[in-house]
């Protein structure tokens, strides 16, 4: 197994997804299977090969650093599960 139960729990925590102990055991085998399969790439000699950063040879566009929109706080917070006076409301973070 490339991925053991402790690793599943660690990456689930990093990904902010709660997994039950039963799910963690199932994921152990599933993730190991996929990661074993992608190990096929080890057969490829990539010495001196540049990693791809873009598929189309265009340089990244730039524009003047100025404000181009704003004043849409209503729209920004409209879909929030909980909002108050244009603020997103979350559970208490600091005691």
């Amino acid at each position, binding site marked *: 197994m490339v*991925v053991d139960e402790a*690793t*599943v729990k660690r*990456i*689930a*925590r*990093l*990904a*902010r*997804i*709660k*997994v039950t102990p039963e799910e963690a055991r199932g*994921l152990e085998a*599933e*993730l190991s*299977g*996929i*990661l074993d*399969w*992608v*190990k*096929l*790439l*080890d*057969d*490829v000699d*990539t010495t001196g*090969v*540049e*990693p*791809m*950063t*873009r*598929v*189309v040879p*265009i340089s*990244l*566009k730039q*524009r003047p650093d100025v404000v181009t929109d704003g004043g*849409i706080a209503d*729209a920004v917070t*409209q*879909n*929030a*599960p*909980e909002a108050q006076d244009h603020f*997103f409301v*979350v*559970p*208490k*973070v600091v005691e």
Partner: protein
Amino acid sequence: MTDLTKLTLAEARDGLRDKQFSSVELTAAFLAAIEAANPHLNAYVLPVPEHALAHARESDRRIASGAARPLEGLPLGNKDLFCTNGIRTTACSRILDGFTPTYESTVGQNLWDAGAVMLGKLNCDEFAMGSSNETSCFGPVVNPWRRTRNGAIDNAKLVPGGSSGGSSAAVAADLCLAATATDTGGSIRQPAAITGTVGIKPTYGRCSRWGIVAFASSLDQAGPIAKTVRDAAIMLRHMASHDPKDSTSVDAVVPDYEAEVGRGVKGLRVGIPKEYRIDGMSKEAEATWQKGIDWLKAAGATVHDISLPHTKYALPAYYIVAPAECSSNLARYDGVRYGLRVPGRDLLDTYELTRAAGFGKEVRRRVLIGTYVLSAGYYDAYYLKAQKVRTLIKHDFDEAWNTVDVILTPTTPSPAFAQGEKSGDPIAMYLEDIFTVTVNMAGLPGISVPAGLSSEGTPMGLQLIGKPFDEPTLFRAAQVIEDAAGRFQLPRKWWA
């Protein structure tokens, strides 16, 4: 009157222009067809009849006053990955439950500005992750095609492909004239192939990604699924644009693709990659491929054997790059700014509970894989390695373009499969994209065009791969195949 829903996009456009029928009549015919078929096919997750009829009435006014735009009054379906202003958009995920965008995707806006009418939002795999449309939180889409076995029609529900399964099923079942779709690893071409429709993924950067729910940003592209090659050409012209809001969209004139249709392939050099002759390819896929070769030769093209040596590494490299990008893109779904929230004891607990409840099994699996390959100590071994392999895959194509103008392959290794047949085995499902994924990895354009029926009477497609921004050649060559193969329309609307 004849059944208006059977018209192609081009025929409907000409009929509206010649005032043979109105956009309201055309739109009402589609709305009635959707009402009858949707309980059986589940292609639409949100039909919008009132919205559609209001726009159709506006189109009829414009046509009457001589102010018609290029797609005036033509009813289309819109994949639920495209944000729609004031209309629920979910990417078919519970985590976007009730999300109503306050903006329109650029591709959508381009279509509505050209006069097209939206009939509703189309089903898809959750966040476009899947090859069978079985991961949608709204349930699977049913392929309108059925298999024939031992001379009798088999009632097993077939998948319409994925992720754009709502788009492919709706077009095949005459529930819209054409549909928007997106393709990250094959999500336009594979569903098109197994429903007898035409689908094109254009060159990366040809369509703006702005306002489309992101999956893997370096691979995602929008494109159409349509009934014919000509219809796909009409659609793509009006979907593509340069968009300052997407820094990867390309500032190049959009050609009149429709003008390319019918120009033929005399002297065109067609490459046949030997690495695509894989074990596990069905005899039928192989035979269809040979027919395609013969048709293009008969039309004056020359055929050449080529090699794309890194082909077999494209799929594993994809299953590192795509999950890595998806784990980053999907970090935004935190239960704070939009969509679902499951309250927890504290903020962290709220995040974890929300994401566990909101993401389906396949999405969770990919986010976890992506998180793993990007985590400390593994980045070089997985992600960087995959991006290097990607460079080699692109290099294979660059070499091929020295000797050929276009590449012909099957779109899928086999025809449509039944629901549940592959959903238990992630890797078997991933193999659906074996012929399409290389194209996304290299950013190239690819089109799938119907080429025949399997022994079970279900559609099979051929894929043409082009040089960057050479969609015109794809439309020319695809039309030659369509002319030779004929169109494959449903033998029977079994739900009617």
